[in-house]
């Protein structure tokens, strides 16, 4: 029963009592007829909805396939079609069906009804203008229906919901089911149900195909075989490294006869070694990188960069492996090459992008409201006051809305997680206990790590020092597993952590001493490459940029870029001292630059085109 039908029933009941008591038959007839009408509607509504509920057939196609599981790509669009039909019956009017869309999806192409009256008001003709003005008073307001929802007005055999959505980020997409709202034509009664139609998809990270990374480097004369790279160490290859005096045991075919004749002693040619290269990505997935909405998290940028590097490296015939780090564990995927290797790395990165439950839960009003909203979307039948009452004591007249929500949510959580009655009461009385389960529920519902779930300050305090230690451990482990010619790419949020970087710098020094290459990529929160120091600090450039920035958003972006550039400067300086290239990458162009850095490392040279870095 809706709230206003309850009020109407109350008025009808009072009117009936007054009419019968005072002998005013018109009032009594009107009120009794009204109550009988409502009763009739209730019986009709109950029978119809009951008959319909068990007979619904639901089917969902994602890009033309209705499989329960599958694989999707981040950033790509999906055509979603949901068919709803009632077995051996018609779908009655006044029903609303909504396909519940996970947070990791963004619905695109919304339709806005056209308003012809507004155009008439702006018309030049006086008569048209007047008609338009009056018509706007009696304007027929078309209901704006979201694309994932359909409202039925006339009986139909089957209905379809068609919409297009874009996958925001790598990880997981779970389509939970269909939300149904049943009304009677007068909207006296309402029945909400959620029918499960679960489809789970793994989402692989998107990547940029950067085929043109090599033109930044000097071309070589001798091209080695596919997947083989030169290394500036003595070995068996085609490119000359140096000439040295002949020592016993050197193969005679390497003797440089002309040079020997000039110097009057035997000289031998020393060639560069040519070995297959292995790239090891070390990706930081600690708490701070998971903050924010899907597609805006730092980890989304990092997996994008990682996937782009993997694609480029595997295209060149090299092998790539991953170290995926978070507070729970460090996961290593073995270096592999070829298409199978590429997909195994993407799968690992996709699984790594799924948000786990954050450690600590702090109760807040916003968390309660969010959980209640999610619960009423997914489990509307469990929030029915007849099933799940607002109060635990009789005649609780002064209970607040917050208190009522808390009691109902405690009961739902206890039911969902099969908890004991004691724990349910504990949740009602102890905020922290309730917060623990609400957090679990929200994370399982696929909510992103944002304000009601975690607070930025908590994450900064708890996890910042842990990150550098974990990265150091991973880099050390990677060095210990390394072969001859490896490139370690640290994809981590290191900006602002310069004070606690000594440990990591030592590990990088060890890697360099073992003739490995190291590159560092930091994700940028703005998704854009920040300005360099010279351009950001110089007053003239700043003023020029400020003039070019027209909107507040552009100015904010500019300020953020300058701040980021400043933050990156000490880190860049310490890494440059070690000969480690660093990039703040978020956009595809930046990824290309990072790839060229790796390609240079692959080439075995210390500098690009002989210039110092």
């Amino acid at each position, binding site marked *: 029963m809706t709230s*206003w039908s309850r009020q*109407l029933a109350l*008025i009808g009941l*009072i*009117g009936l009592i*007054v009419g*019968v008591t*005072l*002998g*005013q*038959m*018109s*009032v*009594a*007839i*009107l*009120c*009794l*007829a*009204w109550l*009988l*009408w409502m009763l*009739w509607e209730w019986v009709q509504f*109950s029978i119809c909805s*009951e008959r319909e509920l068990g007979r619904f057939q639901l089917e969902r196609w994602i890009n033309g396939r209705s499989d329960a599981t599958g694989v999707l790509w981040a950033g790509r669009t999906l055509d979603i079609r949901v068919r709803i039909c009632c077995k051996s019956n018609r779908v009655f009017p006044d029903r609303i069906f909504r396909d519940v869309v996970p947070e990791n999806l963004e619905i695109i192409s919304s339709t806005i009804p*056209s308003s*012809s*009256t507004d*155009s*008439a008001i702006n*018309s030049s003709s006086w008569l048209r203008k007047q*008609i*338009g003005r*009056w*018509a706007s008073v*009696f304007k*027929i*307001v078309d209901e704006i229906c979201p694309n994932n929802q359909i409202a039925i007005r*006339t*009986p139909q055999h089957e209905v379809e919901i068609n919409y297009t959505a874009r996958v925001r980020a790598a990880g997981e997409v779970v389509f939970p089911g269909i939300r149904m709202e049943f009304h009677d*034509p*007068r*909207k006296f009664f309402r029945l909400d149900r959620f029918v499960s139609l679960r489809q789970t998809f793994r989402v692989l990270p998107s990547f940029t195909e950067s085929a043109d990374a090599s033109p930044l480097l000097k071309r070589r004369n001798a091209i080695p075989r596919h997947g083989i790279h030169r290394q500036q160490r003595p070995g068996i290859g085609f490119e000359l490294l140096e000439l040295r005096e002949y020592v016993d045991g050197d193969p005679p075919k390497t003797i440089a006869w002309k040079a020997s004749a000039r110097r009057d002693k035997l000289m031998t040619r020393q060639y560069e070694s040519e070995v297959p290269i292995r790239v090891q990505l070390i990706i930081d997935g600690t708490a701070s990188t998971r903050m924010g909405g899907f597609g805006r998290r730092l980890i989304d940028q990092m997996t994008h960069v990682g996937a782009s590097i993997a694609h480029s490296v595997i295209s060149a015939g090299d092998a790539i492996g991953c170290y995926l780090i978070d507070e729970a564990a460090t996961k290593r995927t073995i270096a592999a090459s070829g298409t199978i290797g590429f997909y195994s790395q993407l799968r690992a990165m996709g699984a790594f992008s799924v948000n786990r439950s954050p450690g600590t839960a702090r109760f807040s009003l916003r968390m309660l409201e969010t959980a209640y909203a999610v619960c009423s979307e997914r489990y509307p039948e*469990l929030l*029915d006051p007849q*099933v*799940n*009452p607002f109060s635990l*004591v009789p005649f609780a007249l002064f209970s607040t809305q917050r208190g009522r929500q808390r009691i109902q949510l405690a*009961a*739902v959580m*206890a*039911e969902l997680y099969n908890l004991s*009655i*004691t724990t*349910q*009461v*504990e949740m009602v*009385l*102890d905020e922290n206990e309730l917060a623990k389960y609400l957090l679990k529920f929200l994370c399982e519902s696929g909510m992103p790590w944002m304000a009601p779930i975690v607070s930025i300050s908590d994450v900064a305090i708890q996890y910042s020092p842990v990150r550098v230690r974990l990265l150091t451990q991973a880099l050390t482990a990677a060095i210990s597993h390394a072969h001859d010619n490896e490139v370690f790419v640290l994809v981590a949020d290191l900006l602002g952590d310069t004070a606690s970087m000594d440990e990591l710098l030592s590990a990088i020094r060890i890697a360099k001493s073992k003739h490995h290459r190291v590159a560092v990529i930091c994700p940028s929160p703005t998704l854009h490459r920040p300005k360099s120091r010279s351009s950001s600090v110089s007053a003239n450039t700043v003023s020029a940029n400020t003039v070019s920035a027209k909107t507040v958003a552009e100015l904010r972006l500019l300020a953020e870029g300058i701040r980021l550039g400043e933050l990156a400067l000490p880190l860049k300086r310490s890494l440059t001292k070690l000969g480690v290239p660093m990039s703040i990458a978020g956009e595809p162009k930046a990824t290309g630059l990072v790839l060229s850095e790796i390609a240079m490392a692959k080439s075995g040279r210390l500098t690009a085109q002989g210039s110092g870095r």
Partner: protein
Amino acid sequence: MSETSKRSESGSSEQPTAVVSSMGPMRNTIVLGCSLMLMLGMGCAIDFVYVGSAPIPGIIRIAIVFLLLWLVNHSNIVLLFGLMVTSLILREPTRLESFDLSVSVITVLVSLGLLYWMVRYQSIRKTVCEVACDLCNVNRQSQSNRESTNKIKFAIQNGIEVGLKLICVVLLAIAILFNQPWTTNTNAWLQWSLTNKQVLWPGPLLIVIVIGLIVVVNEFGWRRKTAGQKKLTLRCNAVRILYPDMQRIVRHRIKRRGVT
């Protein structure tokens, strides 16, 4: 793709847009006309039933009608129903002898019709306007004849169904009320009840019927519940029964946890 087919495709996509833009004012005129006619009809009905017989000046009468129309337009049905009941209570004589059944039936039917009208006002107005636009062939979306015929058929069917329902409900209410002993002859009923049984007849019968109805409704309600709802209902009832004791235990536990 050939040039001709391209041209025909572009032509078919442009044509409806041009039609819509030229039909905007025409459609507005129809919507405005239909809305005004509906309002006028309702105003007359309100005036006839609620203000017609009252000796009040014309300007106040118009103001009252406008107020009620405003309530109708804003779908404030609770207030309107309250006003209807109050107005009937204040106007109607309390003596049963002066009761005129035919006038009462018309008043009740018109009141219920108005209430129904109000509940569905926006959708009725929309349907009427759309049907009128279809008939004049100026609808925003180009619909087929079959669709608009279906819509008209559904609207007429619905209207007849509601009308019959209202008449049935009013007749049933009259039948129930006029078969009660206290409405026909109150004194004789009281006399008979007190002398013979010392109870107000049909009190015991009513109690039995009400209890039976409660059982049936509860049973029906229980069967409608899903498995999850049934489990939750039992859980919540258990918690409600045990809550005073559990509360004490849990509070003690929380306090102890706080100390440690």
